[in-house]
């Protein structure tokens, strides 16, 4: 049976829609996890407000002239990386949405916040 008029239009529309959905989903699945770079110069995190998506990696690099110690006190996100020397990088993969504080165990005033979205 040949399609004509409205029927053809509807079929074309449905095909386009499903292709669109497929593409959209595909794009979502394929979203490359990014690496977010955070510096520590002058005993201050830069940036101080860090935004990430689930699956991203936050790379804290000690680009300062003194040792640092990245630590997270927030319940559910608690981690610690002692003795981060000059030139070293601590990579943290964020797997859970929410937000948490990042401190330094050496410098009591060194803080940043990370917000993780889906």
């Amino acid at each position, binding site marked *: 049976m040949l399609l004509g008029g409205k029927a053809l239009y509807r079929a074309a529309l449905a095909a386009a829609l499903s292709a669109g959905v497929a593409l959209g989903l595909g794009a979502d699945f394929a979203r490359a996890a990014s690496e977010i770079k955070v510096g520590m110069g002058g005993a201050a995190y830069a940036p101080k407000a860090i935004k990430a998506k689930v699956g991203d990696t936050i790379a804290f690099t000690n680009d300062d002239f003194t040792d640092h110690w990245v*630590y997270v*006190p*927030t*319940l*559910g996100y*608690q*981690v*610690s*990386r*002692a*003795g981060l020397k000059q030139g070293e990088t*601590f990579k*943290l*993969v*964020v*797997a*859970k949405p929410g937000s948490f*504080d990042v*401190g330094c*165990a050496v410098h*009591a005033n060194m803080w940043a916040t990370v917000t993780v979205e889906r």
Partner: protein
Amino acid sequence: MKARTAVLTTAAALAVAISLGVTVASAGPEKIEYPKGYQSKFVSFGQIDRYENATVRILYASPEAVTNYKLGQKLPDGTMLLIEARPAKKGADGKPLLDANGRFMPEDQILGVFVQQKRKGWATEYPENIRNPDWEYAVFDIDGTRRANVNTQPCMSCHKPRATDDYTFVFNRVMADSKNAADMKTMAGKKKM
């Protein structure tokens, strides 16, 4: 001659007594008693994943520390905070395995128990530049054996700059969140001492 020996003996005994006395007075860590059964009696305030040495530190607080906690005030007298250190489970590549939330998973083995406790009048014997009023520090094996040879002064020096959080790195920050404090108070209420 005899008198002289007696005097000397007395002096020696006195010296021993004094040095013993001094030792007893400065043996701060001994004031902390091992909290037997903490795993069931205490409230956990999280788990620190230590990336540099692939260990997990499970955090515990004595229940009164939680029930008597008041936002913006010093932690209650008698508060005991504890770290139970365990190795993290590792994969074939030697790297820590992660659960669905990206967290390390602790092994059954316990590497050590690190404690800080505060009581009125404690820690007065330490120099001002390291003392954490009124906190003492101690380290134990899981069977309760005290690691008597551990120098606890570095514990104080490193916790010292956290004065605004009453010398804690984690506990006060967890409790300052009203939802955490409420949840933990509920948990503490269910513990039997």
